């Protein structure tokens, strides 16, 4: 393998392990390439042939996976949201769902009274109940997502997502 191929392969291998923004990855690869080429030139001035110089320069730099791992900054620990703010994503759909459920139960309980519901009103109420169940289920999923968000911040986004869909379901009914 000639020196150019060895350098290209090494850089490609590092690139597969690198994470982050394209500009940052490009910068890292450019810096590594410059360093390797400087090191190759250094070995060549000592009388080492080009292919061996590249092999030595790459060996000095270290395994591609180890090099790339050095550039990965560990994520900061997830801050745990406490108090009322923690439940903010599901607060509104939960409140509306509970209120709607109370209204539903009240109307449903009086369906057979003297001023009972017409068939059309009953059907509307059943549809309303179905939407309410979907919203309650989504709120419950949002609740579970908030609990999981203590370990992984991404779950908080899921909780907000559930909340928005639950609100849409309640509004669209």
């Amino acid at each position, binding site marked *: 393998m000639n020196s150019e191929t060895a350098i290209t392969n090494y850089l490609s291998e590092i690139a597969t392990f690198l994470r982050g923004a394209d500009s940052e990855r490009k910068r*890292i690869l450019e*810096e*590594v390439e*410059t*360093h390797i080429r400087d090191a190759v030139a250094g070995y060549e001035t000592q009388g080492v042939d080009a292919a061996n110089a590249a092999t030595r320069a790459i060996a000095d*730099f270290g*395994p591609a996976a180890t*090099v790339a791992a050095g*550039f990965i900054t560990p994520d900061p620990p997830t801050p745990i949201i406490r108090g009322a703010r923690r439940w903010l994503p599901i607060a509104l759909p939960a409140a509306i769902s509970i209120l709607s459920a109370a209204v539903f139960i009240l109307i449903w309980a009086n369906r057979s009274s003297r001023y009972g519901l017409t068939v059309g009103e009953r059907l509307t109420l059943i549809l309303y109940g179905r939407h309410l169940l979907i919203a309650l289920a989504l709120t419950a999923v949002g609740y579970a997502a908030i609990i999981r968000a203590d370990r992984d911040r991404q779950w908080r986004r899921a909780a907000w997502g559930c909340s928005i869909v639950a609100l849409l379901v309640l509004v669209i009914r």
Partner: protein
Amino acid sequence: MLLLGVLASGPAHGYALASELHRLSNGLLVVVEGSLYPALHRLEASGLVSSSWDNETGRRRRLYALTAKGKKALKEETQAWVEFRDCVDEVLGGLA
């Protein structure tokens, strides 16, 4: 601290930094070259060094330089190291 120390004599690119560390330590300090750049990137993220592309030699190189914050940090680190070394010397001197 050693990287900051080498940069105190003037801006340098990564390969020159590694070579200079090796030379100044009479070959005792062998920098694992692959770990040099992550260290420089962390120092830059901390504001202790700054970097810019340099094209003077015909090849594009990232040139690292000590910042004012880096100079201050180097001074403090050096002071702490001298105190630590003196402390160890005192203990070992007492044993002799």
